[in-house]
């Protein structure tokens, strides 16, 4: 491990930590340190062990060997409570909110203010929670139930919860994966404020450009080992990527050839739903990659869900490959060779307790086995094929999906939809939580699909991603399409201006 | 239109015996102008539901309540409430342990304890040539009054006859299926069985099914209880040796007739004996004919 000059004595020190799961060495002699008031960024490929390391630091897992020193004293956390008491707070990669409780109850869960007699002090609870939420400019009400909030707002509640601990160390495991530009900026402001107060932050992200905005130092993990720590000011992006992936990554626009064909894959005209969507008309041609940009809550996911028949439309025309889809349902769409990769893999994308290979054939069941009898050999071959193509890191596709790291789970969802060999695919946040290397592969893959004449609709909060692969971009705001960019010669700023409502179309 | 309205509360709403009693009571009521509404606990023999049914009957201000208590002691507070509201109470099949005997207008039936004693004694008599009687009892439900009373009677008979050895007894829950399974096990376990006393006809037939399937028919005698049509038929077919005719239909019509008489101002005896005869192959046809009628 390389030495970087340290101005301050490390506050948290991790030494030679190992953690093994059955068949996987998730952490292999990891050492790592964190100084006071520092933002230390942790990057690495999917499955590199980032989340595992953080779970060890926050008491969810116990390391098999190795030590953790806090303020020079050795600590051992048996559970999350111990870590909380040591003033370490964490925002997990996967949400950990209780849906039927209010935002305030979630924020202070386990630490509710009580009066002297042990009776809950609801007023104080709500007021304290609201104060934190307001400091984040969220517009979320503390008394709302969490189940009524969207993904992004839930992420913000997680942030508020972490802040409420008033901790000395704050761990954020991919906090921006579901956020869009506005919220990200708020988050960064918050991070700067905390830093000024002397809070140390460990920040995990796959979006490398973020590293330069907020990071002080950066550590790269690979295969459960630390491969280097750098000062951000001294590390170039290319170097980081090389450390992470072990090869160069092309960061330019990958779509050069125009593969767009004449015939329509998807056509939507005048689509409304009862709540959000208003008069939406879009189309996707075969061989074309169309992006949809927009802020969180703008209705992109709703649009995709309505097209796919998960939510009901109140009126509007939808056609696949020129044939009208009168009442859409997922089953019908799959039969008509259309697929939809949902944004929330844990809830909508995967059967966590079933094997990887079973998950991969789920959407293509009737296509692969038209006679209704499953052939295990075929199932295995397909799964192995996608494991190689998408580089899903696992010792065996018989394993349950729950054992995979977040990014690898995402790849399984992707594989599931690729296996249907659909001619039209909607990707909702296809690279959420996916590392740069894999992301590039996914981009190539999407490009390849388009080359083969498939129509693709990509919804993404990651604007650079859209700019990299989309032929055409729609911008949504408040349930409407507010702008269509006919080609990819746009800048992020232009898109944001439309998405945020600065420009009237 | 019916002259009087009566609520009839039996031990459950499901098993065959109580259905015979209820339908006879309703039929008798129709004949003599008494409207009988049955309100027995739904599935289980449930003392608390009987209590509630009594309370509901009181609220309905019926003219009389007839009850076969699941729990002879437990029903007493409810009976007192009925009396307080001025509603006369009749018992049938099973007595209630009221403090003053005159609280109950009349009891219609013979009682399970006596029945148990009689049938056991009869069966022991049939085996008079044996020096030792290996006995199996298939119980009903040991938490219920009916079983406890019948067992008490059988035990009294056993105490008087020192040839009897009680090999085993298990709960058949008054169900044919359970009795069949239990008997299958007993047949494996015991090579010599002389007598099987089942606490109702259904279980006796179940025991017979097991015995005949094992090819051990004729090795042992079986007795039932209740005198239900299936039981009587089984006696006639020689599947079981005897059953105790409780004359449940007789209890049903008897109690309703007593109600009518009482409400009409006639005097009613404090114990109307109905049933209690041991049905044997000789007299079973007679009883069956009476039932069919």
């Amino acid at each position, binding site marked *: 491990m390389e030495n970087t000059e340290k101005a301050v004595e490390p506050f948290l020190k991790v030494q030679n930590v190992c953690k093994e799961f059955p068949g996987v060495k998730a952490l292999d002699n990891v050492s790592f340190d964190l100084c006071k008031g520092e933002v230390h960024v942790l990057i690495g490929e999917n499955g590199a062990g980032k989340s595992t390391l953080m779970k060890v630091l926050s008491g969810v897992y116990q390391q098999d060997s190795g030590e953790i020193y806090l303020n020079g004293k050795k600590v051992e956390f048996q559970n999350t409570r111990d870590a909380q008491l040591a003033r370490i707070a964490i925002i997990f990669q996967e949400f950990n909110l209780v849906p039927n409780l209010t935002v305030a109850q979630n924020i202070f869960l386990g630490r509710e203010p009580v009066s002297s007699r042990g009776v809950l002090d609801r007023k104080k609870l709500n007021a304290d929670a609201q104060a934190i939420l307001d400091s984040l400019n969220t517009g979320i009400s503390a008394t709302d139930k969490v189940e*009524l909030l969207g993904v992004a707002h839930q992420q913000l509640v997680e942030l508020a919860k972490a802040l409420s601990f008033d901790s000395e160390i704050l761990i954020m495991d991919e906090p921006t994966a579901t956020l869009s530009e506005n919220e990200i900026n708020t988050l960064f402001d918050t991070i700067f404020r905390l830093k000024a107060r002397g809070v140390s932050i460990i920040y995990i992200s796959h979006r490398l450009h973020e590293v330069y905005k907020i990071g002080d130092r950066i550590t790269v993990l690979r295969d459960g080992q630390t491969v280097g720590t750098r000062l951000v000011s001294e590390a170039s992006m290319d170097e980081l990527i090389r450390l992470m992936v072990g090869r160069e990554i092309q960061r330019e626009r990958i779509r050069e050839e125009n593969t767009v064909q004449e015939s329509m894959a998807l056509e939507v005209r005048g689509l409304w739903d009862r709540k959000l969507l208003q008069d939406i008309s879009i189309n996707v041609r075969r061989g074309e990659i169309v992006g949809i940009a927009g802020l969180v809550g703008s209705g992109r996911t709703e649009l995709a869900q309505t097209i796919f028949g998960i939510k009901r439309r109140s009126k509007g025309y939808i056609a696949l490959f020129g044939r009208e889809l009168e009442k859409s349902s997922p089953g019908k769409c799959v039969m008509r060779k259309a697929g939809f990769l949902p944004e929330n893999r844990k809830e909508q994308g995967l059967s966590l307790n079933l094997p990887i290979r079973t998950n991969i054939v789920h959407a293509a069941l009737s296509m692969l086995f038209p006679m209704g009898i499953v052939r295990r050999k075929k199932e295995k071959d397909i799964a192995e094929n996608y494991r190689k193509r998408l580089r899903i890191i696992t010792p065996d596709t018989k394993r349950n999906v729950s054992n995979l790291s977040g990014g690898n789970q995402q790849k399984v969802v992707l594989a599931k939809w690729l296996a249907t060999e659909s001619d039209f695919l909607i990707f909702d946040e296809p690279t959420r939580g996916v590392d740069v290397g894999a992301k590039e592969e996914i981009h190539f893959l999407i490009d390849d699909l388009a080359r083969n004449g498939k129509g693709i609709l990509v919804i993404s909060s990651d604007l650079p991603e859209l700019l990299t692969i989309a032929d055409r971009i729609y911008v949504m705001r408040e349930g409407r399409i507010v702008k269509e960019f006919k080609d990819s010669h746009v800048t992020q700023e232009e898109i944001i201006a439309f998405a945020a409502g600065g420009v009237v179309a | 239109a019916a002259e009087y309205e009566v609520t009839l509360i039996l031990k459950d709403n499901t098993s065959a015996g109580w259905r015979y009693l209820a339908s006879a009571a309703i039929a008798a009521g129709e004949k003599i102008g008494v409207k009988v509404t*049955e*309100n027995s606990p739904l*599935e289980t023999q449930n003392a608390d539901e009987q209590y509630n049914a009594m309370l509901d009957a009181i609220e309905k201000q019926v003219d009389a309540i007839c009850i076969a208590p699941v*729990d002879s002691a*437990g029903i007493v507070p409810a009976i007192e409430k009925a009396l307080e509201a001025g509603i006369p109470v009749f018992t049938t099949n099973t007595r209630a342990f009221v403090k003053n005997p005159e609280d109950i207008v009349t009891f219609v039936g013979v009682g399970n304890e006596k029945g148990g004693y009689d049938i056991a004694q009869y069966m022991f008599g049939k085996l008079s040539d044996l020096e030792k009687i290996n006995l199996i009892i298939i119980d009903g439900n040991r*938490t219920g*009054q009916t079983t406890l009373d019948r067992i008490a009677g059988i035990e009294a008979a056993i105490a008087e006859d020192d040839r009897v050895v009680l090999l085993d007894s298990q709960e058949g829950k008054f169900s044919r299926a359970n009795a069949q399974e239990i008997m299958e096990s007993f047949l494996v376990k015991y090579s010599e069985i002389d007598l099987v006393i089942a606490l109702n006809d259904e279980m006796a037939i179940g025991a017979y099914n097991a015995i005949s399937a094992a090819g051990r028919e004729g090795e042992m005698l079986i007795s039932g209880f209740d005198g239900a049509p299936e039981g009587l038929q089984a006696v006639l077919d020689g599947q079981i040796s005897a059953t105790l005719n409780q004359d449940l239909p007789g209890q049903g019509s008897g109690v309703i007739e007593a109600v009518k008489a009482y409400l009409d101002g006639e005097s009613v005896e404090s114990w109307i004996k109905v049933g209690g005869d041991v049905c044997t192959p000789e007299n079973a046809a007679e009883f069956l004919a009476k039932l069919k009628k």
Partner: protein
Amino acid sequence: MNSQSLRSRRETLAHYYHKVPATVFLLFGMILFFSLLSDKYFTVSNIMNVIVQCSSGVGIVALASYLAICSTGVDLSLGGIVSLSGMITAKILTWDIPLFSQIRNNNPVFLLLIAVTAAIAAGAAIGSMNGLILARTKIPSFIVTLGMYKICETFSRVIAGGTTIRINGLPLFEFIGNGSLLNVQIGRRSIGLLPISMIIMLLLYIFFSFVMKKTRFGTYVYAIGGNNESAALSGINTVLTRYRVFLYGGMIAAFTGIIFTSRLTSASAQNGLGLEFDGIAAAVVGGAAMSGGRSTPGRTLIGALIISVMKNGFNMIGMSNSIQMIAIGCVLIAVVSVDTLRNRRRFV
């Protein structure tokens, strides 16, 4: 009146309409329905009758069922606990050993206290066992509590020793299940307006409403029901919370056991068995979701009342029992589907 305040008033009304559970309307609808069919239905005495039937039967058990369901479990042992605790009460009150005979003769009130305490302790013990196993292992609550139900039944049978235990000459004890305060004379009968069992039931419900709403424990039960893993990661002691849920459930059910024995002035091992399903039905009718984290004690009480009102009403109009069974099944399904559909409309 200006239009704005009118509108806001309409909004508050709508707000309250949504806050009132559908079951309340249903309850009143049923009472109206039965009143139309039977003139003896809507009388003071029958209303008290229904309340007594509820409080000495499904009412209290429903509260325990609700607690278990709210924490994503079911408690099938409740019927067994009712039987066992009732049996223990009876046994202590009638036990023929010198110590107890002496106490009975000298200070019956003290003996009563011992009996009641022992019954609740028994409920607590069984509840603890449930709680310990459930908190410490991953065995589903259906199985654990089913097993415990059978264990309770066995102990109850063994204590009974093959008979029913009768209690005589303890008027104070009989008063718990049969007595009431504030009696009024209507015709020949005196109707109690404050039955003791009702008071016990209401106190329990008020206490647990408070607990669920105003204490950390309550919040944690909802949290476990909403998402057990998140609750654990938030540092909540889920083991202890789950344990307490079943502990309290056992103690609550023991009250029903005491009331049962007092009401019948006797205890049979059969008493109370099967009540657990009524309890679950009542809790679910009240709005509890089997997936946990929903409903409140108040709603559960409404659910229990609906069940009692239904049974009594069918009896009052003289409906036959088989048809009653069918009707109760239909009403269960109907009520809960109206409730779920209504909620879905609001959320989806």
